[in-house]
């Protein structure tokens, strides 16, 4: 029997001596980083795209997940790449970017790329009911969220691999993870590139500014994309993001 959904699997593209660890976002799958992974592999990097625990299987699995599991998955990817590559650059989108930042707190990546990462959950009701979420999830394990799409590339949107509902208990984990991230930014010193999309409806611009400002790194920059929404690695601005990533990696590993 297979547990992973179709196209839900992680990916590994062996290449040269510089490793890129790609980390997807909340409720998503490695698939959302795969095009970027292929691009970077074509540019000669060794690429590993991990799958976060309870993702790309069934949404109810998410209720058993803790953010520490996801960080452990990111660490696993980092250790695997360190065995193959003398330098590792960590790249994460949305919650994957939060995991990237926490990884950079403990280890020494050559650099980090953080894309579309929020600093808190957009719906601030979650903040107030956080202590109740474990209990609520026992009677209501999942919830379907209303919300518009900010995708510019509609064809890419159709290929998206994402849970259609939110596992209630896991929202608490995302909340806690983001809190841990906010507190850790000062301890991150790796060279950093942030990429955010102006059309990202779920992530207010102050998130990008907060991270940029709080990061301990001296080498830190931000790139704003004119095209596309939250899903930077798949939407209309992706080519620009891929090029910026490759340029950043070449620069810091030169």
């Amino acid at each position, binding site marked *: *029997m*297979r*547990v*992973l959904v179709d196209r839900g*699997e*992680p*990916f*590994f*593209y*062996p290449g040269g001596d510089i490793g890129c660890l790609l980390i997807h976002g909340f409720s998503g799958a490695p698939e959302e980083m795969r095009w970027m992974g292929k691009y970077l592999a074509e540019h000669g990097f060794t690429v*590993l795209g991990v*799958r976060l*625990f*309870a993702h790309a*299987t069934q949404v109810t*699995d998410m209720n*058993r997940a*803790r953010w*520490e*599991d996801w*960080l*452990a998955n990111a*660490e*696993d990817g980092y*250790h*695997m*790449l360190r*065995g*193959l590559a003398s330098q590792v650059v960590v790249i994460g989108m949305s919650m994957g970017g939060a995991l990237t930042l926490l990884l950079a707190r*403990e*280890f020494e990546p050559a650099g980090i790329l953080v894309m579309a990462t929020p600093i808190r959950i957009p719906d601030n009701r979650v903040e107030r009911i956080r202590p109740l979420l474990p209990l609520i999830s026992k009677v209501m394990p999942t919830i379907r969220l209303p919300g518009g799409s900010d995708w510019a590339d509609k064809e890419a949107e159709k290929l998206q691999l994402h849970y259609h509902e939110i596992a209630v208990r896991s929202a608490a984990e995302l909340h806690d993870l983001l809190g841990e991230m906010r507190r850790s930014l000062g301890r991150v010193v790796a060279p950093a590139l942030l990429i955010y999309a102006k059309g990202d409806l779920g992530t207010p611009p102050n998130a990008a500014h907060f991270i940029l400002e709080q990061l301990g790194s001296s080498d830190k920059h931000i790139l704003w994309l004119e095209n596309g929404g939250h899903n930077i690695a798949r939407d209309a601005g992706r080519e620009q993001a891929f090029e910026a990533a490759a340029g950043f990696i070449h620069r810091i590993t030169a």
Partner: protein
Amino acid sequence: MSQVLSGAEPFLYRGESGVGVLLIHGWTSSPQEMRDLGKHLAGQGHTVLGLRLPGHATRPADLNRLRWRDWLAAVEDGYHLLENASEKVVAMGLSLGGALALILATSLPVAGVVAMATPYELPTQPRLRWLRHLLFPMRPLGNLLRFVPKPTVNDYKDPQAHRDHLGYEVFPLRSVPEVGGLLELLRQQLPRMRAPLLLLHAVEDRGVSPGHARSIYARVGSTEKELVWIEDSGHVLTVEPSRRRVYDLAAEFVDRELERAP
């Protein structure tokens, strides 16, 4: 502070042979027990991935949240990672890892399996037999009693190997029925397996008795199957005095796979 226990991290070695070997550790254990086997196979030119099963090498309480489908998902991950970079994938596992390797081979086109010290069912030795009687109320019981001390099934021949072994010192109780559930799936799926199989089992294994290997051998669907008994070793074949023999047998198995037509 890192999440994964230092020394217990997963590992990935890249080789040119075209074969990717997936190494799967045992229950409450860690990739550390597979690392020397991994290095040996990498030395033979193979790509090797020693994965870390979820809930392992972090905190014992983590295992109580895990279900066997989580372990299945992780070995599927391992298969796909290797498959991207290899022409053939061989799965090798120790103990519960062996069961996972066998189940993987019934769902995905694994080229061959080496199953070491692999159980066929619960429980595995007399002192643990009481667990079987508790299996039914195990789930609610597991919520009340999180851990039981690991029964001293010390069948290590090498005390240093025992001391060096990185793993949980307790049995997370809620995880026991998950092992039971996985082994039930194993017994169901074994007849469907067709890939070549090598079973390695210690004659003196007091954690998983030799009868388990015989049961797997009898039930597996593969026509190409071999059972080799290992002397001078306890349950953890990969770290015990006969480990070099284990590594050689595993490497020879992969060589036979390489010689086979794709």
